[in-house]
């Protein structure tokens, strides 16, 4: 299921403003890669270029190449809608559809893809909710609104919704920043389980979290005020946190700036 992502020379623009510049990196399949860096350095922007969500903002565009195994996501004739079905995403604030039940939320992606068979949908709901460690808490109220769950449960519902369509890659944009420590722990455990099936990329401001859940860590930084964000370095998480090769990384994770 999981695929390797190979990014080369990627820049992203908001209108005439360049948000990130010339980013190249390889993201390994079946592993967790964490993006860290100060606010506004382009982590989220870069994450959103990986499933072509960046371009839904009016005036936004992307230059460069993102290879998913051997397919360029920005190649000519590639349908962004198809890309987003392959590369799932979980957002910073839990965003289950408020007009839908828990059940309908989980199968929303499948329904968009045209799956209508009730037994199949039932099976996917159970499997995805179990996969998101939410099944036991909601199995008796699948027809209740998804917005009635707690924040942590909503976020796990969103993860269930994302994995229900069996994506190759799962992108997570600060998935725990709106959650309490217990819910955060539940999501982190879940990420550890999910990485056996998916390629996971997670943006986080919490460096303990990056250290706990990720195998590789990428550090992003701004070249200066008003300058685009850049990738400073990417390496094994253990190495980034113990012996990074760039001074700025060490300054950032030790709290000397940012």
């Amino acid at each position: 299921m999981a695929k390797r992502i190979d990014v080369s020379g990627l820049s992203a623009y908001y209108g005439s403003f360049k948000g990130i510049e010339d980013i190249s990196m390889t993201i390994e399949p079946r592993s967790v890669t964490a993006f860290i860096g100060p606010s506004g350095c382009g982590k989220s922007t870069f994450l959103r270029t990986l499933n072509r969500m960046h371009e839904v903002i009016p005036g936004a565009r992307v230059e460069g190449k993102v290879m998913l195994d051997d397919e360029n996501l920005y190649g000519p004739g590639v349908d962004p809608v198809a890309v987003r079905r392959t590369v799932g995403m979980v957002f910073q604030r839990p965003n289950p559809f408020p007009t839908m039940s828990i059940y309908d939320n989980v199968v929303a992606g499948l329904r968009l893809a045209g799956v209508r068979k009730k037994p199949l949908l039932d099976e996917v709901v159970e499997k995805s909710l179990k996969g998101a460690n939410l099944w036991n808490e909601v199995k008796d109220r699948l027809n209740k609104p998804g917005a009635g769950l707690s924040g942590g449960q909503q976020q796990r519902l969103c993860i269930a919704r994302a994995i229900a369509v069996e994506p190759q890659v799962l992108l997570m944009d600060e998935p725990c920043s709106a959650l309490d420590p217990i819910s955060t722990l539940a999501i982190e455990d879940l990420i550890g389980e999910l990485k056996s099936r998916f390629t996971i990329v997670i943006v986080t401001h919490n460096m303990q979290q990056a250290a706990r859940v990720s195998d590789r860590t990428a550090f992003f930084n701004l070249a200066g005020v008003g300058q685009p964000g850049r990738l400073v370095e990417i390496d094994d998480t253990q190495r980034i946190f113990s012996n990074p090769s760039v001074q700025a990384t060490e300054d950032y994770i030790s709290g000397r700036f940012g």
Partner: protein
Amino acid sequence: MDTPSPTVPQDRDGPYGPHQTSHGHAAHGQTPVELPAELPAALAEATGQRGVTAPPKARNRIGDTLFLAASRGSGILLLVIMAAIAVFLGWQASKSLSSNTGHFFTTFEWNPDATPPVFGIAVLLFGTVVSAVIAMAIAVPVAVGIALFISHYAPRRLAQPIAYLVDLLAAVPSIVYGLWGALFLVPHLDGLTAWMNDYLGWTHLLSQSDGVSGSAPRNLFTVGILLAIMILPIITAVSREVFKQAPRMHEEAALALGATRWEMIRTAVLPFGRPGVISASMLGLGRALGETMAVATVLSPSDKLNLHLLDPGGGTFAQNIAAKFGEAFDNGRSALIASGLMLFVITLLVNAAARLIIARRKEFSGANA
């Protein structure tokens, strides 16, 4: 959790020192922000609590009291006005209803000033409901389409002028629509009427009786089209505002699941906007049910209840009141007021039904997200 666990970030006093705590900043020479020394005293002065020994007492704040009184008063006043209207209409109507020798609901003719008085609302009720239904059937889908175009499809440079134009249309007085309907729409609907008679005549509803085929289409169908044009702007304007409120995060959630633009709208925008569209439609329906001048200028009224909607004739409550009030005597006026009361009741029933539809799915409204 089989990741390697580096020691540094978990250990606050590791080789890189403390981080992400206030100590971290202090260690780098930043002093905490000092509040001005006189601030606590000034706050105490402003809130009327001098000294810190006694716990603060609840105070009556004049602004809260005034606002509560004003809003409660407005609410009560609204109910009083509604009740007063209903009582007035009922009282005025009762005089003619007791002397009516026809049946109020099933009699076709309208002769309340004859001796003995005979009148009924069958034709008016039919005409009002049919023209409003035709208007809604045309206006609601078109209005939702225009609203979605403005809120989600059109580039901003195009959306702004269109939105402005729609708002402008909503402000055109109904007599202007009426004149346009009588002088332009009626002559130009000849062709469409003949075409519908030829090809949709089998539906019976959309056909002309043999005796009147070819006459000017001063009929309920034309009235329905004119009403649709009249209520389009208000439904569009309100729906557009509701669609624009659809949360960005739910739209992105749909897009990230692989929804096309239309699928995103169907998943995240339309369900969210549903109660708003229903409310907007009720505003439009209210105008369609009560429209007077536009109907009076287009329709050629008669006391016939005719299921051929393309036949000239029929009438609506408001049109009938406008046409007959001037030359009505006591009993005639009272009868017209009785018909007005019916319009009032119909409007209340329709609104209540709409409220019920909205309330039925309150849990899923999106308001609690």
